[in-house]
């Protein structure tokens, strides 16, 4: 086991971590804006995967085009989810919204199980690979990272350069104050929720081009998102991105030393430990 393996694993971890971080950004965005922990996060990631699956296998669409559609669908789904399940109880104690989003989780996973059953699915994406030094990087990985990068850049541009984006940040900062300034917080909250789920859906779509998946996959990536969000600091999108990369690299390197089955144990233990020891995350919560 030499430096080249370490290097290969790190690149691997970096690319995957970026994609995990994208999903985690969605989760942390929702929390940052409205202090709601979206327990339907995993199922939305799974929906992203299956959207791409259905569009590519049933309609022969190009997977990356399908991902664009997943963006739109993810956004719409989030807005709908907000107004059905969250809006009424937005001011209730945290546990109420937790249970409400969890109820949506059950509904999505249940429906998906009925339609797709729990058997694994996969899509076939043919792209050339590239040689970088001692390692080979799959084309699918490169494209996935590129798309993740574009989405992230677009998100930052939106949040910091557009009026609506600034409204979102205002509501995140001080909802009552923002309303006094004439911002319609309900619309903003709905939109923010939609953005959060959009990121999750895109991430799911990207993952579907890399690995096999099933209706239960959502929970695996949801856990990773939770670990990342807690690592990066709740409500901190940049922290989520960095946390994602940290987790990705950590995962990749750990699998060199330990059987893959131990990785979830390590992740969950880290998760609980961070919650206990440094709840504001490594990079500080917002």
């Amino acid at each position: 086991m030499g430096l080249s393996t370490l290097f290969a694993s790190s690149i691997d971890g970096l690319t995957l971590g970026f994609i995990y971080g994208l999903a985690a950004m969605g989760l942390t965005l929702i929390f940052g804006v409205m202090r709601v922990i979206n327990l339907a996060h995993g199922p939305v990631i799974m929906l992203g995967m299956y959207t791409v699956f259905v569009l590519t296998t049933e309609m022969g669409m190009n997977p990356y085009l399908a991902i664009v559609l997943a963006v739109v669908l993810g956004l719409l789904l989030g807005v709908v989810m907000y107004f059905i399940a969250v809006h009424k109880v937005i001011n209730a104690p945290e546990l109420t919204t937790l249970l409400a989003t969890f109820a949506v989780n059950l509904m999505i996973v249940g429906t998906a199980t009925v339609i797709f059953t729990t058997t694994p699915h996969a899509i076939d994406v043919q792209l050339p690979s590239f040689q970088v030094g001692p390692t080979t990087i799959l084309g699918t990985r490169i494209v996935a990272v590129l798309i993740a990068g574009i989405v992230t850049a677009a998100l930052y541009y939106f949040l910091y350069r557009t009026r609506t984006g600034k409204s979102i940040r205002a509501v995140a900062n001080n909802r009552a104050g923002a309303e006094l300034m004439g911002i319609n917080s309900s619309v903003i909250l709905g939109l923010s929720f939609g953005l959060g789920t959009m990121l999750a859906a895109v991430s799911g779509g990207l993952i579907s081009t890399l690995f096999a998946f099933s209706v239960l996959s959502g929970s695996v990536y949801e856990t990773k998102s939770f670990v990342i969000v807690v690592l990066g600091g709740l409500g901190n999108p940049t922290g989520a991105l960095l946390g994602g990369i940290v987790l990705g690299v950590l995962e990749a390197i750990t699998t060199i030393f330990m059987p893959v089955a131990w990785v979830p144990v390590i992740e969950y233990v880290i998760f609980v430990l961070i919650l206990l020891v440094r709840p504001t995350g490594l990079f500080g919560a917002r």
Partner: protein
Amino acid sequence: MRSFRNLSFWLILLVVALVALLPTLADSAALPFLTNAATMRENLFLLLMLVTLASSINIIMGYTGYVSFGHIVFFGLGGYFAFYLVQTYSVNVLLAALAGGIGASLIATLIGIPVLRLRGAYFALATIGINEAMRAFMNNFDPFGGALGMFFNYAVYDSYGGAKNAGELAYYAMIAVTLATIATSFLIKKSKFGLGLLAIREDQDASQVLGIDPARAKVIAYAISAFFPALAGAIFFFKNGIIEPGIAFDLQRSIEGLVMVMLGGYGTVTGPIVGAVVYDRLRSALITSPPITLGSLTVNLSNFHLVVAGILLLLVVLFVTAGFVGWLRNRFPAVRRFLE
């Protein structure tokens, strides 16, 4: 304790015991119109287990206000401890179950001391993490069979007079555990300790100012709430003769327990019972319902119970937070005395 003088205490226990003993009465030909005693026994066994789980979750969630998403971890731990003891050391299942229960309570205490310091949603998430970590751990833990788990050599049942007798023993043991859980739940609710828990639930900081030590009370409540699911797990897996991580630490079952508590009414003694019965019957109805054909699409409703659980949970959380029994108690104050 004055709960023993309370009529509803005995009434609730009596009703549960009678329903649970129906198959036995059918067997003894006391009730000739009940023909399918064997199936009934199987269904009731599972139902009693769910009532135990829901009532236990209610102690930490309904009374104390700490939502334990991953509570099933104690069910699995009790199951594993007891299974190992019965199989490796031929310990009597009842003793093994007790050991499992005590072990689970000890672990709950150890974990609870740090984890119960977390508030609200963070605690809920941490309990998921704990359950999943335990499951992933057991997947890799070879002394307990790793991913394949453990299974009985049928000779184990010989010391109980055969598999059928062992099954009956398990059934009566489960009845006892369920009744004990309900009784404990009632006793807690009507005690000074329980009043303290309710105060913690309503306003933990104010409860401190009033003289309650929340850290201590929460850990005790958590330890108690871990004991009964562990007993139930021990009996369940003994009867089934096989245990594996996926079934022992099934997060879905944990969550269903939570839905039952919310549905029936958190913070009440009868709420979890009602919730468990309603949810279980609904799920059974869905699982056994024939497939529906809509045009070219055949939909099998058997997996729909998760969707139904979600819808019910959402409706309860949005509109009837107090659950069925809670709503009754609020709407008809006269009922409060009888419907705890």
